[in-house]
């Protein structure tokens, strides 16, 4: 692209991206440990999971609620393969104690395969039906992990972070290492998505998103494209799941239950379901809100609820409601609107993705 053709918005965005990358790369030198080890690391890994959701929504027209479940599956596969049992080991799971690198590969491959199967079943539905069938997947995953005690049980698999590949080393003692890994993987995933959507596959996928019937009559295999897109999103989610397992150490059915599934959707929506960057913006906003909102005692907002930890969920709910009402395309949509000429009228907004249309 010719730099002279860049709009102000693009120039600004490139500048901000560069600044963000520099700040993120240097963050461990000047931010306190909690911000790098928790808030930013979480932003990267939850953003990664959210990006798989946004990829499907923005380019495939499918709003999936199965991404949390897929990330959880990846963490559980990893946990079962790498952890060791016995005294001082881990009491739950299969604790096979295989090589951690092999564990990584199997977790990614296994999750992608499960994603392809999910995708195959779900690809024939669209719109709100797709949302519902993917929700059913996530519920099956929750119950499966909760009830099949051999591989997880309700308490899940713990201490996964003690069994990392030797080329990665100790992540608990060196949280900066995990920070940079998460950062690197996030950038890799972002670039990969950008690449994929420009390939013939990606372009066809966008055609399928906009005009499934027409694309089918042109001879494109619509379900196949949807399935492959779902498989790719599952691959992204599997990376997020591995990072989460290394960050938290524990992966449990509680990680993939309905509230967590909705949390990921909330992150994606806060960021904006139309642009990949929104994934990390949304994750960051959500995590900062979750950790800091409760410290503010907004007069008049306590609703008598301070009895139980400040009722910060109410405040988060109100903020979320405000974002959805003001800008259906989230923070990225707000950003985009800064550059729109003319009055801000609601009717001009692009409604949140096509996925909402009851096609198919």
């Amino acid at each position, binding site marked *: 692209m010719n730099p002279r053709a860049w709009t102000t918005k693009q120039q600004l965005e490139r500048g901000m991206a560069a600044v963000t990358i520099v700040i993120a790369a240097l963050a461990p030198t000047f931010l306190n440990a909690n911000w790098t080890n928790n808030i930013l690391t979480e932003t990267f890994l939850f953003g990664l999971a959210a990006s798989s959701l946004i990829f499907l929504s923005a380019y495939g027209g499918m709003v999936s609620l199965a991404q949390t479940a897929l990330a959880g599956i990846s963490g559980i596969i990893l946990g079962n393969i790498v952890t060791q049992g016995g005294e001082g080991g881990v009491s739950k799971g299969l604790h096979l104690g295989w090589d951690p690198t092999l564990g990584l590969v199997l977790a990614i491959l296994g999750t992608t395969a499960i994603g392809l199967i999910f995708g195959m079943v779900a690809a024939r539905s669209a719109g709100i039906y797709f949302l519902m069938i993917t929700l059913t997947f996530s519920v099956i995953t929750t119950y499966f992990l909760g009830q099949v005690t051999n591989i997880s049980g309700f*308490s899940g698999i713990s201490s996964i972070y003690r069994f990392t590949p030797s080329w990665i080393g100790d992540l608990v003692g060196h949280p900066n290492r995990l920070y940079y890994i998460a950062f690197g993987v996030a950038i890799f995933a972002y670039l990969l998505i950008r690449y994929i959507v420009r390939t013939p596959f990606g372009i066809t996928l966008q055609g399928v998103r906009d005009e499934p019937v027409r694309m089918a009559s042109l001879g494109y295999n619509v379900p196949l494209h949807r399935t492959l897109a779902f498989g790719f999103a599952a691959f992204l989610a599997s990376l997020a799941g591995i990072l989460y397992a290394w960050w938290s*150490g524990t992966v449990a059915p*509680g990680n993939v239950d309905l509230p967590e599934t909705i949390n990921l959707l909330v992150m994606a929506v806060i960021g904006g379901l139309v642009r990949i960057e929104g994934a990390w913006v949304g994750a960051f906003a959500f995590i900062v809100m979750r*950790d800091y909102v409760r410290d503010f005692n907004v007069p008049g907002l306590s609703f008598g609820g301070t009895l139980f930890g400040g009722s910060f969920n109410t405040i988060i709910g109100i903020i979320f409601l405000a974002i959805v009402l003001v800008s259906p395309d989230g923070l990225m949509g707000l950003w985009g609107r800064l550059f729109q*000429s003319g009055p801000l009228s609601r009717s001009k907004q692009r409604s949140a993705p096509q996925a909402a249309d009851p096609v198919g």
Partner: protein
Amino acid sequence: MRRLNLRSWKTAAVLIVAVAGLTVAATTSLAASKAGVVKVAIMTDCKLAFGFAYEPDIGGAQAAFAQYAHGKAVNKKKPSAGMTGITAGGKDIKIVGYGCGNDTVPLAVTETKRLMEQLGADVMVGPLSGDEAVSVANYAKAHPTKTFIIGTAGSQDPTMQIAPKNMFRYHGDGAQWNAGIGEIAYKKLKWRKAAIIEDDYSFGWTSAAGMIADFCAVGGNITKRVFPPLNTTDYAPFVRQLPPPNQVDGYFSAVGGTGTSAMLKAYEQSYGKLDPKKWIGNLFFSFLGADKTVAPKVVGSYIGGFGTGPGLKTAQAKAYERKVAAIYPGLNGGNFADGFVYNYYNAAWALVQGLQKSGGALGAKLQAAMPRTLRAGYQVSNGGLVKLDSRRQAIQDQYELQLVKNADGSVGPTVVAYVPGVDQSFGGLFSPSSPPPGRTQPACKKQKTPWQGKIKVVKNGVITKQILK
């Protein structure tokens, strides 16, 4: 190409201010430990099944800080308003935050990280529930410089299979709480064959393990185990799998906190009126508000304990209750013989003793200085001292209870049996190398437990010399 207009510059300015604010927040070194201050976090639940234990837990812990470490309650009616002026071992103790879990693992991890890393706590008093304790124990293992004193969690693993050196538990686990209940079923109710219905997760299994082990140890037989999953909507198909009342002598229940009354109602609609002589429950028949919602359905039932002796008339017990009442008179509805208050109280008290001995030093020094015995309110044996075993797990007296109707029409537990010196191993049945409690564990077998035949009858809050027959 579009130009930026005035409105967008205003918005941009707001954004920049917000970003700048965040940067300041991020760089300000919140987590750096100020010399001379010991940062303590209290981890409990504020949502879902155990949400209402938030104030009782915090109140229990802070009552001990007030009693033994000069703390001043900000609000006598609302412990979570905070406590100031706590000092021990020459250091100020600052309560940096209260954890707000919901009985699930992921939130326990996130809250633990928030308390220990964002707020920089050195010591945690908590958590509340079984699976939370499992994940916190694993966290403790990875962070040996921090010290963890379990609040009132009943799963076995944290001090059995995982057993990190920086984790302490001054109360029994879910199995210990039920020690002796099987012998009561066998001797007082003449049960020989029983069925058990238990929640399908670690606390349910651990609690049931205590009942099964104790009942089988004296010669009883468990003919059926039924496992309704957590968050079951309809208990009917699970209750139907219990043998009908003419095929067993009785039923043990380890279902709860929220499912207990739903399960019992489903039983009533399948097999008719509940017979209190045919039901034995765990603490979920009486504690956690169940005295209002569950207990009235099964007045007269024997139930497992919570490590406390409600209405026990020993001087030590009365002193404990007086001390809590002096700080938070209305805490937990004035019911201090509840593990939520008592166990958090003891955890915080042990911490104060540890800090006094270590001179305020933290990490390994504090862990070495943590008391190995504690003069806990309801302890009688061992000279009134709860003793920790080699895995830092309490060997504690237990009290088995019966639900009775009080004069005012309310229903509550009363102590009927005193079980001295219950340890975690149940006479060798459980060990770090044995499988943890699960759907098939422990197997039902006759064996010898240390307290077998030594359980004493308690009448009107007084421990008699009479052995339970």
